């Protein structure tokens, strides 16, 4: 798979999923130096590897999505989760979310939006654009732990699905189905988190074998 592939867990031949939890790499985006410090600690204490950047523009640069050179060096870049503040000067968290979901490399990476303002239309807009979750600031440890469990669960389900089918055939079918689903202008598909969407498609395919 391409750049930005979600980290795969190593599954022993017996299909037993009780392996040590791999370390998630999280990209945290926030223009506030105080909030960057806090979110970094919240994530590190939750055993995540963290990269913090101060703006949406810097985030795009880091991900190689800024159209500049250097994108080819990012083949091995693994980002499992992007957490971003909503209100930032320049590119907002929403703008960043859109750019990530438009990219082929990172559209499957879950994006969580944080905001100090509980504005329902804003929340709906972000979830509709494919945000995994919307967290109200100030972010607490319980929020981060919950997000981490959610991400790990989604990744475990993906691996489980793949291990129960003909891997190679499914891989090919997944690749073609993911490219066709991205060109779909199907608003109902957009409402579901992308990782769940992938799972239901592979389950449909696996029933054909």
């Amino acid at each position, binding site marked *: 798979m391409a750049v930005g592939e979600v980290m795969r867990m190593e599954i022993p031949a017996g299909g037993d999923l009780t392996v040590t939890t791999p370390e998630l790499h999280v990209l945290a985006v926030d223009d*506030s*130096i*105080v*909030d960057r*410090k*806090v979110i970094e*600690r*919240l994530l590190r*204490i939750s055993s995540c590897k963290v990269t913090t950047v101060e703006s949406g523009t810097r985030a795009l640069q880091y991900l190689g999505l800024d159209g500049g050179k250097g994108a080819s060096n990012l083949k091995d870049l693994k980002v499992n989760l992007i957490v971003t503040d909503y*209100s930032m*000067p320049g590119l907002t968290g929403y703008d960043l979310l859109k750019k990530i979901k438009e990219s082929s490399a990172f559209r499957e990476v879950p994006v969580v939006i944080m905001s*100090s303002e509980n504005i329902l239309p804003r929340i709906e807009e972000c979830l509709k654009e494919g945000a995994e979750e919307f967290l109200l*600031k*100030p972010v*607490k*440890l319980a929020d981060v732990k919950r997000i981490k469990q959610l991400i790990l669960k989604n990744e475990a389900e993906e691996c489980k699905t793949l291990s129960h089918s003909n891997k190679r055939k499914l891989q090919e079918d997944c690749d073609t189905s993911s490219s066709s689903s991205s060109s779909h202008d199907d608003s109902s598909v957009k409402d579901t988190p992308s990782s769940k969407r992938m799972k239901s498609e592979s389950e449909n395919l696996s029933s054909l074998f």
Partner: protein
Amino acid sequence: MDLVQMQKSLQDYTKSLFLEGILDSQFLQLQQLQDESNPDFVSQVVTLFFQDSDRILNDLSLSLDQQVVDFKKVDPHVHQLKGSSSSIGAQRVKNACVVFRSFCEQQNVEACHRCLQQVKQEYYLVKNRLETLFKLEQQIVASGGMIPAVELGF
């Protein structure tokens, strides 16, 4: 003062900050993130908050002193300060910022000047109290003691 007395003083002092509403539960969240591997986490975050706030308050004073106040510049500063104070649990600063923002929305220059004074007041208060708190902690650590966990029975 012996160690046990110092620890009790610190606990009482911390409790009083919560009872007066100067700090809220988010400060406790930060304390939970501090451990042997990161023993200075809280003071590091708070120091960043002080530096950031000094800068913001300075910018706010300048913006409000202009002949024609540009509220498009003022509001984001207040929003920033509201956010960072909320993140460290500086409740009264945060609340003062909320009021400030409503007057920014109304584009009421005079009220905004008053709000700025109020925010500054709350900020210097929490700054003073937290600096005292950290001094008490340092005294305990210097005496070979450990910082007791805050027990809030209310």
